[in-house]
């Protein structure tokens, strides 16, 4: 062991990084950006889940309770009729509603049972949990009534007690896994083409730029589709992730994600000159999308400015689409799924055009 030799390697490494401003910026900038983003998502004072209160109670306690929950800061509750509540639940405007039955006050006074009905949209576990917590908290106003049992009857429009965390997140992650891996492989493969000089040969041949991009796209899409099929089969058959929708629709959405990822990889590799630099795009491309696409934190409860960002991220629509299909059992007649598919398709077209446009410029 020679400290001088070890020192030589250490010094050389630091010298290399000193010249690589991009890597330095990433090394010291990216953690702050990511943590700031995370802090903003969690503490940024975003919207609380919206819920409805349907008060059918003839007695006095119903309105006491309704007022209490409307005052809660954990949810944004408002009174509405049952028909309206059910309609809004279906459209996703509210994450759930509490129904106080006509004999609610009687029940409390005579049977000492508080039995409201809580109906949840159910596709996003964080929202469901927030609503359940807020409802049970609001019942503390009735604590003066000695010996009251709180036994809400919870029902779910989608999902339900039979769903576990994997059922909720599996849907989103099936899309994410394919997107992420395909993106990395394409970006690196395309850079290798440049690094080994073969791209120069391609450009000095009769090949047209779109032919190169499309050739890449088809080749990697074939691989990506096999991967997507594998991921899907494993998720459904081995992990038994819940699926209420059409497997072919899931596959269609995955295929679109794969095409998007391939072309994003080609497009972004134009802005890197080495594989090392390409790898640096991973945290920049992947982390914000994971935080902001609604996989973990529902987009509807994000702080306003972040919601704007989320709404222009392709992964947001892919995740929403996956949940629409697998949890809600959506088919092509659903306008929300149509939107998801259209947006992801639009992004595909965008990156194909972008990759083609930048190809020539970067080879010379």
């Amino acid at each position: 062991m020679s400290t001088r030799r070890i020192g030589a390697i250490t010094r050389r490494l630091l010298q290399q990084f000193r010249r690589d401003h991009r890597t330095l910026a990433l090394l010291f900038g990216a953690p702050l950006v990511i943590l700031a983003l995370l802090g903003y998502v969690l503490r940024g004072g975003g919207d609380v889940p919206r819920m409805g209160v349907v008060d059918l109670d003839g007695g006095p306690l119903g309105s006491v309770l309704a007022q209490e929950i409307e005052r809660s800061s954990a949810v944004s509750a408002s009174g509405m009729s049952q028909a309206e509540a059910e309609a809004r639940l279906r459209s996703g405007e509210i994450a759930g509603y509490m129904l106080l039955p006509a004999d609610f006050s009687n029940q409390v006074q005579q049977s000492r049972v508080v039995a409201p009905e809580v109906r949840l949209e159910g596709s996003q576990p964080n929202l469901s949990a927030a609503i359940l917590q807020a409802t049970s908290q609001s019942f503390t106003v009735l604590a003066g009534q000695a010996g009251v049992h709180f036994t809400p009857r919870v029902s779910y429009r989608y999902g339900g007690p039979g769903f576990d965390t994997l059922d909720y997140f599996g849907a989103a992650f099936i899309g994410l896994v394919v997107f992420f891996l395909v993106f990395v492989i394409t970006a690196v493969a395309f850079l290798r083409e440049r690094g080994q000089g073969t791209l120069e040969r391609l450009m000095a041949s009769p090949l047209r730029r779109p032919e190169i991009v499309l050739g890449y796209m088809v080749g990697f899409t074939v691989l990506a589709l096999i991967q997507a099929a594998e991921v899907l089969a494993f998720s459904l058959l081995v992990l038994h992730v819940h699926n209420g929708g059409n497997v072919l629709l899931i596959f269609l959405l995955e295929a679109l994600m794969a095409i998007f990822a391939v072309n994003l990889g080609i497009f972004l590799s134009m802005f890197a000159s080495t594989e090392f630099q390409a790898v640096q795009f991973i945290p920049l491309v992947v982390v914000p999308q994971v935080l902001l696409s609604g996989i973990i934190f529902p987009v509807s409860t994000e702080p306003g400015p972040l919601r704007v960002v989320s709404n222009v991220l392709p992964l947001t629509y892919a995740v929403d689409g996956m949940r629409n299909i697998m949890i809600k059992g959506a088919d092509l007649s659903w306008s929300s799924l149509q939107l998801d598919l259209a947006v992801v398709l639009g992004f595909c077209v965008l990156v194909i055009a972008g990759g083609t446009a930048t190809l020539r410029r970067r080879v010379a």
Partner: protein
Amino acid sequence: MSAADLAIDVAGVVKRFGSLAALDGASLQVRRGEVYGLLGPNGSGKTTLIRMLVGLLDPDAGTVQVLGRRLPDLDLLARVGYMTQQAALYPDLSVEENVRFFAAIHGHQDGVREALELVDLWDRRRSEVATLSGGMRTRCSLACSLVHEPDLLLLDEPTVGVDPQLRRQLWDRFRQMAAGGRTILVSSHVMDEAERCDRLGLIRSGRLLAEGTVAELKARAGVERLEDAFLKLSEAAAG
């Protein structure tokens, strides 16, 4: 000489990279069926000129005509073969797969065997390129650039790092192809292979100093050796 007899016609071409003029008013004419040597030191503009001939670079000024057509012209490139300085190949493909691929993107399906036999790699056709020696890679790269039977072959320092025996072999191939009517432009900074060209162009600092056969250049400089001729002619141009 009529324009139809010219495989390459470059007139007053300028190419700047920032403040550096890689080509500074270079002009040259290569006749069909000849082996033309572009001779000059490192950084004299040889590679820039060749990349311009395949449309990888656009000139800032001047005109470039290849096989009688103005660039850029993608379809023209089907008739041009280009061998880059480093052996640009796919290391994880076999020799034959590489050659077949480059044939295909030029619109050719056959000729793979002929190309590989020409460079003595037919027996190694199943080897992965990553396992080949440097000289074999160079030959494979050459096979890739001529598999589509181009009318014009542009070779950027094809014999760098190649041993003398193989170099002689490659030059025999070049002469064969020229005899078959193809035009070849070879860049080099090695004087002894320049002697095997029909005509030479001496390039330095992005300009063509002199052009002619080996004998003509020697006579013009009044010296015995080509190397001396090159040095003398560059001094004369600088002075």
